[in-house]
């Protein structure tokens, strides 16, 4: 469905009466079913969020009542740190490979579990049980990693399956002990209204993304190892962050100003992100890299997309190597 057509059919309010609103309501239900089937949840457990990051507060704070303690890690998102600020909480430290160990959790603990780290791709393998509640941050893992069986709340971000940004999917398990932390007068969770156009576009995106992912997993894995091998072999004084998910790589380079590197790469047609202090909005280095003991200066973050080709990667790596040499002078 082309974008202008999506906007046309999603304009009506699905909650109202009439033919057009009814068609819009059907589209909304179809979208729910699509997400439910790909994410392994029930369609009535889904709540769409027009502010995806609101899901951290909904998912975590909603589980923290009666003096429950929040357990989180030093590579969690800043949104989780903010929630932990003013309540009983404990921050766990990852090992040099980014792994967490959950040996001491109690039945009064609520765990915020980040399935995949969006900077480095680090994947958590631990699945603690017998805790009061489990919030799953699936914003970077998307459809790649199934929900742990004892999940209470979960959050996904539409961009993780190449869907439009500005849409989150928040879920509350039917069996969860959860209370809405936002002011509310009834049982609705989504403060709303959420763009039906974004929901429909994201449902189309997740369908085609999942179909492609099966076919492209091997290619992405090969590209990932090609990049890692190239960097460690051909670019001296480089530090590769531990990874996990194949579509993400974080690499840092000594004696290189990341802002200059990112700018030059963008000028040459290769937009990349960075975790370095000089390229962040708050002038602080990536807390994830620092937690992993990885160099934070001269950092670039690469995302390997479904459409990425071996040719492009080869060219990019040559440009990267050359640009770093130029900057090191």
């Amino acid at each position: 469905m082309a974008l202008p057509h999506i906007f046309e059919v999603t304009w009506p309010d699905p909650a109202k009466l009439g033919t057009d609103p009814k068609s819009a309501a059907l589209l909304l239900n179809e979208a729910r079913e699509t997400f439910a089937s790909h994410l392994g949840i029930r369609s009535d457990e889904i709540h769409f969020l027009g502010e995806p990051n609101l899901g951290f507060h909904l998912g975590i704070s909603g589980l923290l009542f009666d003096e429950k303690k929040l357990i989180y890690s030093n590579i969690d998102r800043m949104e989780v740190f903010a929630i932990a600020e003013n309540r009983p909480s404990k921050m766990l430290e990852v090992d040099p490979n980014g792994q967490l160990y959950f040996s001491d959790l109690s039945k009064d603990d609520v765990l915020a579990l980040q399935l995949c780290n969006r900077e480095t791709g680090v994947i958590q393998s631990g699945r603690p049980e017998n805790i009061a509640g489990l919030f799953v941050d699936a914003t970077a893992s998307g459809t790649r990693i199934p929900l742990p069986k004892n999940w209470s709340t979960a959050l996904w971000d539409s961009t993780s399956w190449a869907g439009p940004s500005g849409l989150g999917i928040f879920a509350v398990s039917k069996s969860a002990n959860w209370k809405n932390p936002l002011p509310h007068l009834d049982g609705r969770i989504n403060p709303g209204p959420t763009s039906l156009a974004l929901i429909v576009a994201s449902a189309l995106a997740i369908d085609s993304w999942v179909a492609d992912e099966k076919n492209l997993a091997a290619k992405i894995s090969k590209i990932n190892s090609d990049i890692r091998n190239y960097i460690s072999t051909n670019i001296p004084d480089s530090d590769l962050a531990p990874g996990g998910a194949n579509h993400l790589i974080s690499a840092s380079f000594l004696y290189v100003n990341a802002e200059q590197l990112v700018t030059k790469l963008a000028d040459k047609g290769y937009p990349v992100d960075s975790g370095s202090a000089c390229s962040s909005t708050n002038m602080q280095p990536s807390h994830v890299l620092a937690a992993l003991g990885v160099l934070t200066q001269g950092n670039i973050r690469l995302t390997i997309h479904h459409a990425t080709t071996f040719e492009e990667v080869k060219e990019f790596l040559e440009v990267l190597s050359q640009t770093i040499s130029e900057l090191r002078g």
Partner: protein
Amino acid sequence: MILDCLGKRCPLPIIELAKALSQQPIGFKLTLLSDDPASQPDLIAWARMTGNSVETGESNTFQITKLTD
């Protein structure tokens, strides 16, 4: 030797550190002053990557020992 990099932002402190050490023999010690927020994690990473030694001290000081060329 004291290498004052206060007010300098990454990667300058570590670039200057590398320059200062390059002319010196193994075993050479220097004190680096840096208030850049990236310096603490990055000096530890730098030490690991280059085979040198760093100790974090009080108020933005770092004790560096050159262990390799």
